[in-house]
């Protein structure tokens, strides 16, 4: 059994290594090459060119402000919401659960577009409405600015920050606070001297993850930053490879190297912090309900704030897209607007061969990619959890490496690789890229499924007289099924809306949904964009709801 296991381990290291290390290696080699056609001729020209570009300084400043601003916004909001949910008597607590899941169903690209539709300076719906209502001379808001980008990205990263901070706050040992109160500190003093410092690792982890995500973010900078000429690294990089005739993959690789290095470093810090926060947070007070702070008069306004946030995060984007898909051109909702509603945008999208091709490609990538990804994840998770060796530790590090990959950067790396192969400009290039980049999302549910299968469950079947094959069929596979299903759905829903990698690798003939939506945005075809966007949200939502239901069933089975 032992030699078979180590063969499997090395085989998986080879596969996962090829998927994750290869694009990084090609990115590095590419950054020292003259161009896609002159791969391997060593030069440092691209670095000199990329980093001495006078625009680069401005890009760096913008990126820093964007990344820090949006992470601060998302972390602050997350602390606020987590505290309200876990520690106060705020009503309608189920809203918080929805707030942390729903935004996963609305792709970042569409969320950005909906805010552009609401607050753009020429005909943003909310802007026009406010102008009419208060008879203003000019539009009150301009989303096409650094501030607008920070707002939208901050809202997008809020759920993930909340998912990190809320459990830490929920598991917080309230006796730490109580002893501070007994020692004579006020509630506020206790919050700042005890509660927040104890939660610091979780808060920092949420902040750093926000930084990594906004650094990798492409949808917000492209949809909201570009019209306002606010360039950040992601869009700066994209311009080098997408616009005009002078695409320069060497220069893009040179810039990408530093983005990748920053991202990997931050993820290493993040993983150290989450390990730290697990150590820090004490769960000793199980069975005790944490003291609930009564909000009193502040209850209604605070709830209003939460309700407004939920509205902004969930209802508004979908409503705007649906509305825009039905009206002939941008106009403030009115009786006249509703009377003019028709399905012309839907008809033109459903009659557009490229949109249909994109839909077909995305569905294929979701089904085939998630299936292959889950098969790979099952084996990788098995080795990580059940085979404890130095090689399996290496496999674990390798497979979580891509967690820190900014899609667009790794897309450039893959580009350098695929150009050397016949896979270039085929759907298989996208398939491989997707699996490599999103592998951790498949491995995570699988490894928690494997962790739940205590080795005794397997061993007792053997002792009962069942052969290893019977044990596999009757014990292991049935216990794994929920993990397999939720891993598949999670990966499929990510693949349906994939943008950042696709935007680099997609070529005529291999369009996918998100790329097609971006094209509509660039051409200002908001109606068609909205119609196609609703289709995408529908597919994505169906998958996430299915995943939640499977997850809930699994938890019920595991409970008690």
């Amino acid at each position: 059994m032992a030699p078979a296991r180590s063969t499997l381990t090395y085989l998986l290291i080879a596969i996962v290594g090829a998927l994750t290390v290869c694009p990084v290696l090609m990115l590095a080699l590419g950054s020292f090459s003259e161009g896609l056609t002159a791969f391997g001729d060593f030069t440092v020209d691209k670095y000199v060119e990329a980093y001495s570009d006078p625009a680069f300084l401005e890009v760096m400043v913008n990126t820093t402000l964007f990344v820090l601003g949006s992470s601060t916004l998302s972390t602050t909001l997350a602390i606020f919401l987590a505290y309200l949910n876990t520690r106060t008597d705020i009503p309608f607590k189920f809203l918080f659960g929805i707030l942390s899941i729903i935004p996963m169903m609305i792709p970042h690209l569409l969320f950005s577009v909906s805010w552009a539709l609401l607050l753009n300076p020429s005909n943003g719906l909310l802007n026009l409405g406010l102008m009419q209502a208060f008879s203003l001379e000019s539009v009150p808001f301009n989303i096409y600015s650094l501030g607008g980008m920070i707002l939208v990205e901050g809202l997008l990263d809020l759920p993930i920050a909340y998912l990190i901070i809320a459990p830490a706050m929920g598991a917080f040992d309230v006796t730490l606070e109580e002893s501070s109160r007994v020692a004579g500190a006020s509630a506020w003093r206790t919050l700042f001297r005890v509660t927040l410092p104890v939660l610091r690792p979780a808060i920092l982890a949420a902040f750093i993850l926000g930084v990594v995500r906004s650094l990798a973010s492409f949808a917000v900078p492209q949809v909201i930053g570009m019209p306002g000429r606010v360039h950040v690294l992601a869009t700066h990089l994209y311009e080098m490879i997408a616009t005009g005739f002078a695409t320069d993959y060497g220069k893009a690789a040179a810039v990408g190297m530093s983005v990748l290095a920053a991202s990997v470093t931050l993820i290493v810090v993040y993983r150290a912090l989450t390990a730290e926060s697990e150590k820090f947070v004490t769960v000793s007070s199980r069975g005790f309900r944490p003291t609930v702070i009564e909000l009193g008069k502040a209850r209604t306004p605070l709830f209003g704030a939460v309700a407004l946030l939920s509205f902004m995060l969930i209802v508004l984007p979908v409503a705007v897209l649906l509305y825009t898909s039905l009206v002939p051109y941008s106009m403030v909702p009115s009786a006249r607007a509703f009377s003019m509603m028709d399905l012309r945008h839907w008809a033109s999208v459903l009659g557009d061969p490229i949109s249909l091709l994109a839909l077909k490609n995305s569905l294929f990538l979701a089904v085939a990619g998630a299936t292959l990804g889950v098969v790979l994840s099952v084996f990788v998770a098995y080795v990580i959890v059940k085979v404890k060796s130095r090689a399996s530790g290496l496999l674990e590090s390798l497979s979580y490496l891509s967690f820190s990959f900014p899609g667009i950067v790794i897309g450039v790396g893959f580009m350098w690789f695929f150009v050397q192969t016949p896979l270039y400009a085929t759907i298989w290039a996208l398939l491989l890229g997707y699996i490599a980049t999103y592998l951790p999302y498949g491995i995570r549910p699988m490894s928690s499924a494997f962790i739940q299968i205590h080795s005794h469950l397997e061993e007792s079947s053997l002792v009962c007289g069942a052969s290893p094959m019977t044990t596999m069929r009757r014990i292991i596979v049935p216990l794994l099924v929920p993990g397999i299903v939720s891993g598949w759905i999670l990966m499929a829903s990510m693949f349906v809306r994939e943008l950042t990698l696709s935007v680099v690798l997609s070529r005529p003939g291999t369009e996918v949904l998100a790329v097609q939506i971006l094209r509509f945005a660039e051409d200002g075809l908001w109606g068609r964009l909205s119609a196609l966007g609703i289709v995408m949200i529908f597919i994505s939502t169906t998958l996430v709801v299915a995943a939640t239901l499977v997850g809930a069933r699994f938890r019920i089975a595991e409970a008690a």
Partner: protein
Amino acid sequence: MEIRIRGVSKYYYSEGKTIKALDGVDLTIPANQIFTLLGPSGCGKTTLLRCIVGLEMPDTGEISIGGDVVWSKEKGISVPPEKRGLGMVFQTYAIWPHMNVFDNVAYPLQVRGVPGDVIRQSVEKILRFVQLQGFERRPATKLSGGQQQRVALARALVAEPKVILFDEPLSNLDAKLREETRKELRAFLTELKITAVYVTHDRVEALALSDSIAVMRAGQIVEIGTPQKIYFDADHRFVADFIGRANLVKAVVRAEEDGHTVVDSPLGRIACQHRDIPVGSEATLCIRPEFIRIVSGEQPAGANLVNGRIESLVFVGEVYEAEIRVGEERLLARIDPDVRLGEGDAVSFTLDPAHCLLVAL
């Protein structure tokens, strides 16, 4: 069925070092007994159990169960666990969460291809035996700890194995339930006439359950005997110390008198249970706290009369626990609650030579 273990060793390699989990174990477990492997954690008891059941492969030696060799390094025999026909109760119970009680218990019969109606009868019988009748359709996850334990026992017994193995099966239960389950288990096993191998680190559990106990340390068997033998007449200091609370005092053998071995110790001259130790050699005198008898009033100076002073006295319910100072030694004693004594009082006590053990250093 008798289990014979000959020269079994098992090594683990970690960070360049070799750890001997089992170090040349020779052991014969007699048929139809409850045989306990007792020792501190890391002594190799669980590894030995897993070697018997076939979940671990020893590096050397031979294991046979009821005359059939199931493992032999030399002969190259290795019977996999599913072919050994044993029953086992795991520490975690290992109840399969995706099956109900009936399927969990029926599993060993199902994989043997037993016909359905026979399975139903056997499961019903065994569930009645462990007092879980009517629980067939209950999902495995909806059971309490004690019920899971009984399902695990039923599953181990349903195929009527000749040997059943237990790996610390009571350690996940709370104290009260543990005591009840221990009594039940003893009753079940005695009724069944089955060879049971039981692993635990809990000395009370071992004493209460077993017909024989093997005490293990660092991959080796130190001593084997009945619970009484292990508790009262241990040969090794480690065993005497591990199995119960003991006062251990250094002593030197001086003479053989009237069938007793007489030693000089800080307590004075003490007559002990006979041991074949040469005069003049050193040994350890082991006295259990409950065998220190306080004598009140004037007593004739006689054999094993010791004078001391009470250093501390703690009431723990059924007795006082006293620390008695004799010279430089402090002895732990259990004193009846009705003896009127206070801290600082001078006391005399006697030691029955039958309960003064000399153990190897």
